[in-house]
């Protein structure tokens, strides 16, 4: 059963499938199905649009429980009770009432049927212990909110770009203070394993950075620093 999840995703990437939405931006028609979980209405709207504009099929739910229900992982329904749409990626908010993103992550990684699905955590708090905890539990990546188009594009590219499987690039890839231009290289080492020393390195290499948008005042450094105060 778990092998099928991986194979079906690869097969879907290779096949040319009909797109649900008529976005002009998608040149290739591989359909990545993303399940997005967030309790905030505003954030749900934004993440849905971000994913759709990067040619992903999106299902948005407002809680961890609903996410489990959708996957068919909750106790009431059997696993073949859900609508058969295989999920390729789960992106979830960390702070949610009821079940947190971390708890959802644990449930997914604890299930034989769904542990292969990559899970990405989003959070407005840039707390390294939280990031480490999520990555240790098996999260693929950790994105600091507010989520930008470049974050989603980067995510999609390194997870599903060019037919690459996720096992090829499992590096720690915390959202960097990058711009949308491709010339910016990640300031954080993506390939090494997570260690406390690296965590402190990350905070020091992240602070000097160029503003993401030259026309306007807000600098990512300020954003990083202000979220560090949390």
């Amino acid at each position, binding site marked *: 059963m778990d092998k099928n999840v991986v194979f079906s995703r690869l097969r879907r990437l290779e096949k040319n499938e009909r797109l649900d939405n*008529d976005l*002009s931006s998608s040149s290739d028609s591989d359909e990545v199905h993303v399940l997005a979980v967030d309790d*905030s209405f505003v954030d749900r709207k934004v993440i849905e649009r971000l994913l759709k504009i990067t040619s992903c099929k999106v299902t948005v739910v407002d809680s961890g429980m609903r996410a489990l229900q959708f996957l068919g992982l909750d106790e009431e329904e059997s696993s073949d009770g859900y609508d058969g749409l295989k999920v390729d990626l789960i992106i979830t908010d960390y702070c949610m009432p009821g079940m947190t993103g971390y708890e959802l992550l644990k449930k997914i990684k604890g299930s034989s049927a769904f542990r292969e699905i990559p899970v990405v955590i989003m959070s*407005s708090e840039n707390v390294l212990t939280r990031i480490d905890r999520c990555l240790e539990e098996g999260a693929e990546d950790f994105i600091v909110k507010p989520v930008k188009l470049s974050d989603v594009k980067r995510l999609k590219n390194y997870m599903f770009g060019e037919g690459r499987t996720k096992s090829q690039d499992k590096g720690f890839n915390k959202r960097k203070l990058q711009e949308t231009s491709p010339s910016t290289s990640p300031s954080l080492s993506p390939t090494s394993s997570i260690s406390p020393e690296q965590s402190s390195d990350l905070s020091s290499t992240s602070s000097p950075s160029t503003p993401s948008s030259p026309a306007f005042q807000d600098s990512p450094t300020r954003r990083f620093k202000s979220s560090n105060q*949390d």
Partner: protein
Amino acid sequence: MEVVGQLQKQYVDFITSLFREAYLDDQYVQLQKLQDDSNPEFVVEVVSIFFEDSEKLLNDLASSLLVSISLFWVFILCLRPSLLLMVVLFFLLFLFQLYSQQQVVDFKKVDGYVHQFKGSSSSVGAQRVKNACVTLRNFCEEKNLDGCSRYLNLVKQEFYLVKNKLETLLRVSITLW
């Protein structure tokens, strides 16, 4: 048309000033990037959801910082005490209320609301609102009721300011484009 050109210039000047004065930050630009012909109302939709959400949050915040000890006052009045006794009792109750509000306010709950508000304002790029929320959260952590009340007023103020400006901005942009 000359008039349209002027209006466009006014729009550009206005939005530039909003960024310069930190009412809006880069995240608003991000939202604009997500709007296109297939979804021409996106910014308006998100901003409208933000406004609705925020009004609710502000109400929840206001009521969670209020402690209802009004029943005590009613009780006192029912005792029909002499004027002097009433004054003394009111004074004592006032002190008691000051003290107990510190203990009775659920700062965790307040912090929860502020966290939500901070998140949603950050997601639309309402920078000043977000910054005010950050400070308000610090007061919550310190269980500083006075600071919380003051900063809640500031958060409200900043919210209505940016709401006003965004409404103007979006109204003009709909007219122009």
